[in-house]
């Protein structure tokens, strides 16, 4: 029984560490580009807020 549990836990440890490393590389590369895109979209909002400050004062 102990052997069975330890095999299961070893597989879990290896899989979780390996997939996490892979995810870090994949996510890390694309995430910086996506952050730039997000910031440029947010810049549109800030420009709009500067040009129409009255929108921020409308009650919602």
């Amino acid at each position, binding site marked *: 029984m102990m052997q069975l*549990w330890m095999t299961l836990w070893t597989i879990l440890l290896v899989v979780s560490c390996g997939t996490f*490393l892979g995810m870090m590389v994949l996510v890390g590369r694309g995430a910086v580009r*996506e952050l730039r895109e997000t910031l440029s979209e947010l810049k549109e909002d800030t420009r709009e807020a500067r040009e129409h400050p009255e929108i921020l004062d409308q009650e919602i």
Partner: protein
Amino acid sequence: MNLYQTNFTQVDSVIVVVYLLGSLVIGIWANRYVGNLSDYLVAGRTLRIRLALASMTGTEFGLVTFMYMSELGFLQQFAALYLGVLEGVAVLTVGLTGFLVYRLRQTEVMTVPEYYQRRFSPGVRVVGGTMMVLSGVLNMGLFLKAGSQFITAISGLQDEMYLKWIMTGLLLLVLFYTVLGGMVSVVITDLIQFFVLGVGMVVVTGFVVYNIGLDGFQHVVTQYAGCYDPTDSVNRSATLLPAATQQGIGYKTIFQMAAIIGSASLLWPPMASRTLAVQSSEVAQRLYRFSPIPLLARNVIPIIWGIAAYYYFATNDGFREALSAALADESVQTWSAMPLYLSKVIPTGCIGLVTAGMVAAFMSTHDSYLLCWSGVITQDILGPLFGPFSQRTRILITRIGILAIGAVLLTWGLWYELSSNLWNYMAVTGTVYLAGALPVVAGGLYWKRASTAGAYFALLGGLTGLLAMDPSIAMLKKLGLTVSGADITLLAFAVSAGGFVAGSLLWPNRKATPGRDETTN
């Protein structure tokens, strides 16, 4: 033997301070990207899959997570890994089926209580928001203390005053950049923290495996009475370390954790806020399909560190005696075993990087949680009660809310004394919200007869979970009622679900609720 012997030097302090100052600068810089309320609360709903995943990873890998998971690894060894399995399976199931999250994102709400109003009534929103904030702030209550104890243990600072000053300093730093930049600041810092934390985790895991060796992990079970079977209700390792209780995990605890982790993976507010901040329902479901990877790692990796700490103290007589003495006089708690171990095996320079990674984990969780709860106070409690407010006023209230929650956290962290393990505290406080939210949201989305009365019963039923907190259990014991936290947690879920069904059947809604969600089919 000095338990606080450490490899942490001034070089490491400099690394940590530089990192903290960098975060501060980014927080100030992010403020320029906040144009309106949506930008402040959900980053304008502009997050794409990778950025959302990095941000969610940053949030879910809190320093408190490392502390409670490594504490479980230290106390229950391999058997504690069942939590990773439960979370991985729960999140993957949601990712594959889209259960709940797909429809919830389709409603275009910014917070979960906003959904309560659409589906039920403004009153349900206020009650639901209040329960969420109560549960969330209690849940966060020991984050500061756990984070500060990590830093004091790893850096060898023993004075109680250091603990208090570190708690205050860390909190002020997070408050500063979160108040200024909102979700924009949170996402940018989360991404940086994702990298710093990731490198720190790889470094620590490498040193830990090198230090005890693969044979050492095997010996934990074969020679040092380590637990490996979560269904076993006896903790064998208690014979070696008196800090561990005799009681093992067992089936009842597994059911308790399945209920909590299953509902938290769907509706825990910081996680749900990422779901609601992504571009579309499809992205929300994809986020869940990939999330089991980081979520599994956040359980498994700290547990490995905890198991290594167990092995280190079990095989080193001098340090084991010093630790046992410190645990007996309560100058140290079991959650400090992992940082005390790391402080001895990770070399100077690397330990600074690791500490910066852990401080990153601390901040990335705090900022998201602070923003989430104060957003709920503004949008779901004060807005419906005293609104309407302008966007400008709402941002101001949210900022004040962040500061107020910060003050509560500092007070609670200094005052509350934990008598069970840290994970139990997190699970029990989370139950107060989760037990009520699960039937209300799931029932609201999938059951036509779900009614406002049922929603009230379910949400208030979650309060039963407060009885599972340590002081309540002690009080019940004095009254002659011996119950465990697991019993009460399961009772809270049953009371809420039962109350929801009974309330909906006995007091159905008389007419269609205005603004009722169109996805309810």
